[in-house]
């Protein structure tokens, strides 16, 4: 039993105006991986330090395999941590670093070093046992740090942006290694990350903003049904359409200047309330202007285009001055000034969140798209204003 549970964790740094962690509840089932994502300063690392015992919570509990370990010091919690800086011990060689955990737990030297060598093979670093940390590359150092954490034999691994300082190629290699290690050892992993792309490595993703956990869901669910506008904006790529949820003949519907959108049945609870419809930019397409088709749509004019890899994202301005992002199919391009009609893809899935969560709606902007969180690399390119070409 090595599942990790955080219950009602609260924390505030001395002298800080706002708490760093506010009532966080989180469960990582045994052998699973949960990634906590959030912008810089959202409390991700503090959350990990609370779980590790490196910070003391003002309230709440940390449970490991159902056992309350909140009062235990870090060394007695049975957790291992790998952080962005590998913190290898310079006075020890590579094998000495990996054998450190077994040695302090009383394993004889020879046995500890033999175990260290096995873990070094596991991270594909056999042959480098006698090197000093300063003689390794960044990627190798991070592999040693992983091997060192695993060699303790602890079943819960806390990863604090472990690949954040590596270049993309190396990061991809480390992702593969993590998948391999999980398949081989099935540790319980709580990982905090800055890059949304890494969230796909986990079974569950938690979104932490301003110390509050807004949502915990599988990665696909997160993109399909963000719990709040804050989550949607953090993920990026959503268009926000202001309107109202009503009970339609075939289930709940969202009504706005776009027309009527069918919502999933579990949105019925929002009927009668103002709600913001969230539709992803890849779920919209551009059609020729003219007579409106059946279903929701909106006429507008292309005001800019931006290339994201092989595809082009068009920015369309509607007559009420609202703007929508549409990701065009491969090899399709439009020019600024083109009149278009924005329609949903037949397979589009939409979701509505209560309008109250956004504050009072701006009457002049019934539609907007969620801007990418500027400091989340995986959420896509930065603010579009600088990148659009007309």
């Amino acid at each position: 039993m090595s599942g990790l549970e955080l219950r009602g964790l609260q924390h505030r740094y001395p002298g800080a105006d706002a708490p760093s962690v506010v009532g966080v509840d989180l469960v990582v089932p045994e052998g699973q991986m949960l990634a906590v994502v959030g912008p810089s300063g959202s409390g991700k690392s503090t959350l990990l330090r609370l779980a590790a015992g490196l910070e003391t919570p003002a309230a709440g509990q940390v449970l490991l395999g159902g056992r309350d370990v909140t009062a235990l010091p870090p060394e007695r919690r049975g957790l291992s941590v790998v952080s962005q800086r590998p913190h290898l011990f310079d006075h020890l060689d590579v094998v000495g670093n990996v054998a450190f955990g077994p040695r302090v737990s009383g394993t004889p030297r020879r046995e500890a070093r033999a175990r260290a060598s096995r873990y070094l093979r596991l991270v594909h670093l056999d042959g480098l046992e006698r090197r000093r940390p300063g003689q390794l590359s960044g990627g190798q150092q991070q592999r040693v740090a992983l091997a060192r954490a695993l060699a303790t034999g602890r079943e819960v691994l806390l990863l604090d942006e472990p690949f954040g300082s590596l270049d993309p190629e190396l990061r991809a290699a480390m992702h593969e290694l993590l998948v391999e290690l999980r398949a081989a050892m099935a540790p319980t992993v709580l990982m905090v990350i800055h890059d949304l792309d890494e969230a796909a490595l986990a079974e569950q993703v938690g979104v932490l903003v301003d110390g509050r956990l807004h949502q915990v869901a599988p990665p696909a669910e997160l993109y399909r049904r963000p719990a709040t506008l804050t989550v949607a904006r953090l993920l990026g790529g959503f268009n926000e359409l202001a309107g109202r949820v009503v009970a339609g003949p075939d289930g709940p519907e969202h009504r706005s200047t776009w027309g009527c959108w069918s919502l999933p049945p579990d949105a019925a609870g929002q009927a009668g309330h103002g709600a913001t419809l969230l539709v992803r930019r890849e779920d919209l397409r551009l059609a020729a202007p003219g007579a409106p088709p059946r279903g929701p749509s909106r006429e507008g004019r292309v005001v800019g285009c931006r290339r994201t890899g092989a595809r082009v994202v068009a920015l369309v301005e509607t007559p009420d001055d609202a703007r929508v992002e549409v990701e065009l199919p491969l090899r399709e391009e439009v020019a600024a000034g083109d009149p278009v009609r924005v329609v949903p893809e037949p397979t589009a899935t939409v979701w509505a969140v209560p309008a109250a969560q956004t504050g009072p709606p701006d009457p002049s902007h019934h539609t907007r798209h969620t801007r990418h969180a500027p400091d989340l690399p995986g959420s896509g390119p930065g603010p579009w204003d600088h990148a659009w070409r007309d």
Partner: protein
Amino acid sequence: MSTAVSTAVSTAVSTAVSTAVRRGAAGLALGWLLVPLLPVALWAVASRWSGRAALPQQLGTAGWVSALEAGLGPALLRSTALGLAVAAVATPWGAWVGRLLGWRLARHPRLLVVALVLPVLLPPLAVAMGLDVVVLRIGVPGEVAVLAVLAVLALPYTAFTVAAGYARLGPGPEEQARMLGAGPRAARRLVTWPALRRSLALAALLAFLVGWSDYVVTLLLGGGRLVTLPLLLGASASGAGNEPTTAALAVVAASPALVLLVVVGAVLRSARRSAPRTGPGGAA
């Protein structure tokens, strides 16, 4: 092509100039150190060097013989013992205070800094005279009083040296050791102190020098019973006509500082050599 050549030439010239400037500065610093020592070194091996002669007229070991007769051996032992004792007291305390300062663990760091620096700012003669009265009245042995005062005087050097080491290291490695199963003491012993070995060695050397080179505190609080090398040197220098003896004593007195200089230079060179060859993001 010509642009590339001119850039290469300009880079080479700028490198040559900066190397020349660096070497010139090093030469000046060495000269500053060696010029006062040169006459002392010559006097130490001279038995006659009169008036306006540029060099000694006669070489010999008279100065050394006389210095040994004056008690160089026992004084050397006492100075060494005093220096080691001061280092033994001031280094652990300095390491503790340095941890508080380097990792900002002190609640009132400014107060701590003022408390550390205050004994150094006060004139040692005044402090020693004042303490002499106190020590006599409360019956503390002179040797213990000398050691205590010198340890306090050495503390700022050890504390700030170690604090710089702690600040550079950060708490990360120690926390990592804790997460790997080491208790607080084991984490410090097995990870933090080895990582700070250079700072600790430098702090210990500085503390040793404070004890080794002290004159005023040893004279006043030691009550004349604790005859160390500086006291012997002072007594010899205050007399006339015994320059070779004084020079021999001065050479011995200066030697630890020179050793320190060599050691610090070696440590700095080794630190540069052992810097990681590749930073994060390098090829795996």
